[in-house]
């Protein structure tokens, strides 16, 4: 396994030359072109910054964003992607955690970047693509780099109200991409259909599978996922063969009856992740695409997007549970009890992961890192870091893992990880709100907010839109005289649960 992005990208460019590497609805770039752009940007960055330097990247949903990421990697630095459409407050939070002095934005987003009050330097991606590449400088970077250097920092919801940045190394990324490609059988005949926002963890497959396996990636326009009639048509136009999408996309397509007017004819390899796939939705996809491989993937960002996979070989009935399967190559997955003892087979325990795919921790947050990534309590012989996922599981007799829910108030909503307490912290910043409790109605995929105080629901909705990403804003706002309490003073969530029905 090659553990060097520069080398891997160089080889791909040499082998695939003018074959399309990334395309979107407006333009496409070849392997050679991406390599050229990345080298130019990489040289410019390397001239300015030393190796292992963190760089914020704010670029649009188009073919040049992966080239920016790869360019930063060629400079031996790591990138923190930021979605410009997120509220200013969140972007500022990310910048404050990142504490960097360099932000790269494309011309579409540079004004927004400048308005964030960022004190470091802001460079324009298009201008960096014009710089001259210097092979000598890039070779020196490559010689100085190490496989465990950070590659990117991806931000996810944090329970204290501030997003946390998960740091992934080059080596972790290589392990996951190779393991995924082997399971799914991805090769250079594949055309991947990207759904995930490019700043989000699930996009790493769409960005790096072309680098590692010579596949092409088409970045599907965002509006196709809102208007499913356009989705299948676009997929057929682009002859998309493989997708790795969040479960919500599959669910919505079925809900609006997308199969009544056609199907994605070329689609042969499907991976879904992000939340539990309803078996009735999966059956509709299986019936319409009987020759397609369906794989259920499970795993958090802290383990490079994944842990386990399950190849679905048959149809599952409504009352059957879809397993999350077995570990990918280079992942160790096991269960621990509350007292850190090994969980016997067939009993419930917390899903724990170790291996070279573990994140380097949370950026600029030693305390949380040390709490979340710990020495394996079962290993007294040598250093072995593990990550406790906070998810419960049961190991079946045949070694297949079943998912049994969360131990805290983190939910998965539309494929995104959401800490309900982060929503509450944001609501409580309004003076007109006294108390607030966010709840999740899983069956309807609805986030509820119960609150007391004299705030109008419109005021809260507008406020939340201004500070949280859209998917975190509750769809149901319920004003109460006062919130129900238990005798110990805590909010009575059981009673609120009843009110959601």
């Amino acid at each position, binding site marked *: 396994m090659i553990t060097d992005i520069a080398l891997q990208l160089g080889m791909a460019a040499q082998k695939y030359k003018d074959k399309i590497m990334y395309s979107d609805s407006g333009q496409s770039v070849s392997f050679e072109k991406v390599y050229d752009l990345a080298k130019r940007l990489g040289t410019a960055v390397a001239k300015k910054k030393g190796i292992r330097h963190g760089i914020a990247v704010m670029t649009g949903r188009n073919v040049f964003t992966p080239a920016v990421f790869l360019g930063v990697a060629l400079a031996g630095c790591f990138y923190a992607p930021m979605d410009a*459409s997120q509220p200013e407050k969140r972007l500022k939070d990310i910048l404050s955690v990142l504490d960097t002095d360099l932000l790269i934005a494309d011309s579409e987003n540079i004004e927004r970047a400048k308005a964030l009050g960022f004190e470091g330097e802001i460079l324009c991606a298009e201008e960096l693509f014009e710089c001259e590449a210097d092979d000598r400088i890039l070779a020196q970077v490559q010689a100085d780099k190490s496989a465990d250097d950070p590659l990117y920092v991806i931000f996810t919801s944090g329970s204290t109200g501030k997003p946390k940045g998960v740091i992934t190394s080059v080596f972790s990324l290589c392990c996951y991409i190779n393991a995924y490609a082997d399971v799914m059988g991805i090769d250079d005949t594949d055309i991947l259909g990207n759904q995930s926002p490019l700043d989000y963890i699930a996009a790493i497959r769409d960005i790096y599978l072309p680098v590692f396996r010579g596949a092409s990636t088409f970045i599907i326009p965002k509006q196709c996922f*809102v*208007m499913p009639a356009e989705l299948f048509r676009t997929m057929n136009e682009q002859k998309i063969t493989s997708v790795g999408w969040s479960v919500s996309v599959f669910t919505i397509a079925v809900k609006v*009856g997308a199969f*009544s*007017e056609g199907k994605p004819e070329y689609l042969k390899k499907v991976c879904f992740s992000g939340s539990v796939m309803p078996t009735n939705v999966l059956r509709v996809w299986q019936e319409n695409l009987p020759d397609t491989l369906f794989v259920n993937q499970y795993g958090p960002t802290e383990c490079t997007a994944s842990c386990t996979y399950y190849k679905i070989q048959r149809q599952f009935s409504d009352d059957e549970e879809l397993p999350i399967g077995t570990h990918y190559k280079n992942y160790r997955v096991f269960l621990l009890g509350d007292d850190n003892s090994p969980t016997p087979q067939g009993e419930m325990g917390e899903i724990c992961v170790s291996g070279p795919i573990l994140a380097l921790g949370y950026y600029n947050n030693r305390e949380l890192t040390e709490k979340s990534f710990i020495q394996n309590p079962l290993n007294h012989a040598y250093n072995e870091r593990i990550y406790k996922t906070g998810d419960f599981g049961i190991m079946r007799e045949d070694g297949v893992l079943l998912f049994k829910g969360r131990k805290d108030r983190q939910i998965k909503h539309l494929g995104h990880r959401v800490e309900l307490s982060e929503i509450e912290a944001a609501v409580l910043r309004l003076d007109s709100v006294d108390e607030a409790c966010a709840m999740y109605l899983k069956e309807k995929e609805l986030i509820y907010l119960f609150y007391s105080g004299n705030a109008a629901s419109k005021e809260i909705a*507008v406020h939340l839109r201004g500070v949280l990403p859209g998917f975190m804003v509750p769809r149901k706002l319920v004003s109460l005289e006062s919130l129900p309490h238990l005798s110990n003073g805590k909010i009575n969530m059981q009673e609120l649960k009843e009110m959601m029905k």
Partner: protein
Amino acid sequence: MKEQLMEILEDLRPDVDFENEKALITDSILDSFDIVSLVGALNDEFDIEIQVGNLVPDNFNSIEGMMALIEKLQDEDQ
């Protein structure tokens, strides 16, 4: 009809100015989840059957587009 429609929309997304927004889909103001809820609510309220083929940006970018769609589907029904 416009009043009923506005009521549904404001209930769905109180933070959006539906009178003036003309690119609800193209500018990603409504997301896929909004659309699924909206389709269900419109079907119930106006006794229509929105098909997947109707789910194109023109029909949902503005309240005018939505009203035109509802009228068209109601006419087809008769």
